[in-house]
């Protein structure tokens, strides 16, 4: 790696940030790792790795139950994350923060509780044409079970939602609108605030899939006024297997439980069980303690660097990459619009994305190729998949230049 990393703007110390991520030191196929698959999962700073090791080597205990010191310490750390998340998304109360395994489970939780209870025959659920499979399949299942209908907001050629069509889809039968904040396949930022306002005007509840936005955009669930907001720890520098469902308290209170077991109960007899208060009502069984604890240092790290700084840096990377990519003959950016974060997805005439992926990997460059779990979107563009480079706070323009060099060579060899 070139040691003279360009100072992107004053106060953004990219060299010191890179030092916080030990994986960036490794080599792949003899080349320094260039990690551009951040939309799939981000790398972890040392503080997150340390928190995991610390928990298991120092205060491993089950939470909420024991009165011994270890259990108290573990519980305090476990619950400290909830407060950090509450501030991170500006929720009104910590009871609105439910721990899950990830975005997918968060969405499924809403599908199997709120939607199952509230969707009647003939009711409608609206999703968009650029959803991840995780925000399609749970609704398909519930709609089928409850005889409700699934409607889809179409996407235009630039990878943007057709908002007029959305308004046409809204009706008195619309009970739920579930859309992503940022498209994982293209990086498009959707006008979720407008979507929420318009949906609320029809009395519908709105779930925002924030898997791709939580790392890059300021999230203020009160300002957005969304009813549910789902996201994953592992895409924001935290551990895998940990996710968050934010829900408005008044909604969460009315919802039936998702899973039964320990922790979520108040009193159990063979005749009847009463349930625990929020948020524990939705957290059955021993939770993912270590990963929940280690999400806090991830959030602390993001807060320390500052989301505005991160976004400025990533915008610079995205602009640089997009400009360079468009110089390649026959290259087409999928989702070519001016309100995107951190993702550039593209196809190259006469070259299969998978071949590019293999050859870039051969140079230590990790990009994602394929349909990005958004097959309906790929079908919309009539392509089997794209090559996706997604950037994070620790990436550099030099890395993009390395990718360009490898890409140009790959195209030459493949054509």
């Amino acid at each position: 790696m070139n040691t003279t990393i360009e100072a992107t703007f004053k106060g953004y110390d990219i060299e010191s940030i890179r030092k916080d991520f030990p994986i960036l030191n490794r080599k792949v196929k003899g080349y320094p790792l260039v990690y551009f698959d951040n939309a799939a999962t981000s790398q972890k700073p040392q503080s997150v790795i340390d928190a995991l090791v610390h928990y298991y080597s120092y205060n491993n205990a089950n939470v909420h139950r024991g009165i011994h010191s270890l259990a108290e310490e573990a519980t305090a750390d476990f619950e400290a994350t909830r407060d950090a998340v509450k501030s991170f998304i500006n929720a009104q109360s910590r009871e609105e923060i439910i721990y899950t395994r990830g975005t997918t489970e968060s969405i499924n939780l809403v599908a199997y509780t709120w939607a199952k209870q509230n969707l009647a025959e003939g009711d409608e659920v609206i999703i968009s044409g650029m959803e991840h499979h995780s925000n399609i399949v749970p609704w398909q299942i519930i709609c089928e079970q409850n005889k409700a209908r699934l409607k889809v907001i179409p996407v235009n050629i630039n990878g943007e939602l057709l908002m007029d069509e959305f308004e046409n889809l809204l009706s008195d039968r619309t009970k739920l609108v579930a859309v992503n904040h940022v498209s994982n396949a293209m990086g498009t930022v959707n006008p979720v605030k407008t979507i929420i306002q318009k949906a609320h005007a029809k009395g519908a509840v709105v779930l925002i899939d924030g898997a791709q936005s939580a790392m890059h955009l300021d999230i203020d669930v009160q300002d957005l006024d969304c009813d549910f907001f789902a996201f994953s720890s592992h895409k924001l520098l935290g551990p895998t297997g940990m996710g968050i469902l934010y829900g408005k308290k008044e909604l969460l209170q009315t919802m039936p439980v998702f899973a039964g077991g320990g922790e979520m109960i108040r009193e159990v007899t063979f005749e009847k069980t009463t349930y625990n208060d929020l948020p524990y009502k939705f957290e059955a069984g021993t939770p993912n303690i270590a990963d929940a604890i280690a999400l806090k240092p991830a959030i602390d790290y993001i807060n320390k660097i500052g989301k505005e700084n991160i976004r400025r840096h990533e915008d610079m990377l995205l602009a640089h990459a997009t400009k360079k990519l468009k110089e390649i003959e026959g290259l087409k950016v999928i989702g070519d619009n001016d309100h995107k974060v951190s993702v550039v997805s593209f196809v190259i005439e006469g070259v299969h994305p998978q071949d590019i992926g293999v050859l870039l990997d051969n140079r230590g460059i990790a990009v994602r190729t394929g349909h990005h779990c958004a097959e309906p979107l790929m079908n919309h563009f009539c392509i089997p998949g794209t090559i996706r480079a997604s950037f994070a706070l620790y990436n550099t323009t030099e890395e993009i230049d390395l990718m360009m060099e490898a890409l140009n060579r790959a195209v030459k060899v493949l054509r």
Partner: protein
Amino acid sequence: MMKTIEQTETEIVEDFALFDSWDDKYEYIIDLGKKLPPLPDEFKKDENKVKGCQSTVWLVADYRDGKVFFQAESDAVIVKGLISMLIRVLSGHSPEEILAAKMDFINKIGMTSHLAQTRSNGLLAMVKQMKHYALAYSLRQN
């Protein structure tokens, strides 16, 4: 006299020993891919698909005089190159020989990563499909 499966495997391993970089290995595979004769369109139908996450492979087999002959194509050229090697090794042999083939040349030439389970249309899936054909023909034989 036709070469045995093992002899062809050894030949490929020897070919690859000449390359000293991954770039060269892949350029060779890409070249093989480009040279693989296209599969006639009539065979490019769903029932011949070895569908995976990323690229599509079409594989057809033909049984003549106790031997199995393969033809295949993919929309990705590296996959095509890999297929071309599999065809070179297995095509024209009896079902029993194909079923007994160890195919360890794949590891020996360093293409192990293409065997990964996650690459569902990787070499593993293709080898499996070719052996399925061989098995089907061997059952028909008996």
